[in-house]
């Protein structure tokens, strides 16, 4: 009898693997919106999906508030600069409402983002003719990412000061993080503190661990997700 219970569970598990993504989609449609607005946060303890899962790649990340935040732009540029949070706030702000797709499969639909276009910062810095890529660094001391200069100039790539209708929280990578709308979430570096222009692409933290350097949603990492919209 015990053996039958074990085999039964294995059978159910197999069915779950084959049909689970359909069940998950259904649950996400019903419970996902509830979870994002759940004031108790209890729904967040259940594996429902359609919500953010928080990743950090290093030991306890220091907490920076807007007052002591600095963003350094350096490397192959005509005018290196350091921006405070207030400097960034004073620049033209762009709003984007787009899905956030993680390479591990979860997707949060229609996230509201607000911040400075990365291309605006690049225009101010003036990349030299030898610069072809950006190396992005995080004040967590470990997380790094890369973008080509062309990718960084896309209109839906933001240095985000707000998400989900408020300041970017610490767990989401605040006070300032990157949002690369057409790419998988790992390209949207959290706790952004440095932008360095480089002569060639320097692979980032996750790219050293097998993820695609050009992380287009639906066209990289062996995945066929629908592009974010």
């Amino acid at each position, binding site marked *: *009898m015990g053996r039958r219970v074990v085999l039964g569970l294995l059978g159910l*598990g197999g069915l779950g693997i084959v049909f689970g993504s359909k069940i998950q989609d259904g649950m996400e449609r019903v419970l996902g919106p509830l979870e994002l607005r759940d004031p108790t946060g209890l729904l967040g303890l259940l*594996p429902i999906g359609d919500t953010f899962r928080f990743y*950090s790649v290093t*030991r306890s990340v220091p907490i920076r508030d807007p007052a002591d935040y600095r963003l350094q732009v350096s490397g192959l540029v005509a005018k290196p600069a350091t921006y405070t949070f207030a400097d960034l706030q004073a620049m033209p702000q762009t709003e984007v409402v787009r899905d956030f797709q993680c390479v591990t499969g979860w997707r949060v639909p229609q996230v509201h983002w607000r911040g400075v276009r990365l291309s605006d910062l690049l225009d101010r810095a003036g990349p030299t003719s030898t610069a072809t890529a950006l190396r992005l660094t995080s004040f967590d001391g470990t997380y790094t990412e890369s973008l080509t200069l062309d990718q960084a100039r896309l209109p839906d790539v933001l240095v985000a000061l707000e998400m989900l209708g408020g300041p970017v929280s610490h767990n989401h990578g605040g006070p300032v993080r990157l949002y690369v709308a057409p790419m998988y979430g790992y390209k949207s570096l959290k706790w952004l503190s440095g932008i360095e222009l480089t002569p060639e692409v320097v692979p980032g933290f996750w790219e050293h661990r097998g993820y695609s350097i050009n992380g287009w949603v639906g066209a990289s990492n062996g995945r066929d997700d629908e592009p974010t919209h």
Partner: protein
Amino acid sequence: MSPPTERGRELLRFGRPVRWVHGTFAALLTICIATAAILYNGSIAVLVGDRYIVEQIHVWSGFALPVPLLLGLFSRDYRNDLGRLNRFARHDWQWLRSRDRRDGHLPVGKFNAGQKLNAALSAGAVGVLLASGTIMYFTHLARLSWRSGATFVHDWVALALGLLVVGHVMYALRDPDSLRSMRTGRVPLRWARREHDEWATELAGAPEDQVDASR
């Protein structure tokens, strides 16, 4: 009440190999659960960080889970216990349905029906977690929709197994004799008479007062 002559007598409930399998498996599963909590809960994840290392620890202690179970098969005691856990008798179903299951009116062998059910559900859940975890970790093994399905299965089955483990530990903490037997292997005969009368009779014979009464 058992007669005074049985006071202080002990029975061997779990030999060294069985205890070793239990201890190793429990340690591995504890690592899996702790790292799962870190990977899964956002607040803990950001507090602990080191996502890549935590993931590696989780994955490899997960893959190691079946090792003690398989090594145990070399031990006859262990195989014997597996056989007992596998066998459900009619009184086991009655035991599961009964409200006063612990008052001694139903015969209970070395394992009660709840323990048998726990063993079967745990083994099944661990098998499902291994299969779904393998599909999640080695991404080239299956197509995307199966991998999403595997994540779905892994999440919910892990949650269920976690609750099962919490229940298992709570029952153990409530019964000091039982808890001690997982460490020393021995239980008081009086405890065995109360909780597992059929097994106690099998090892130590019928209680003396009953023998007397039948004469």
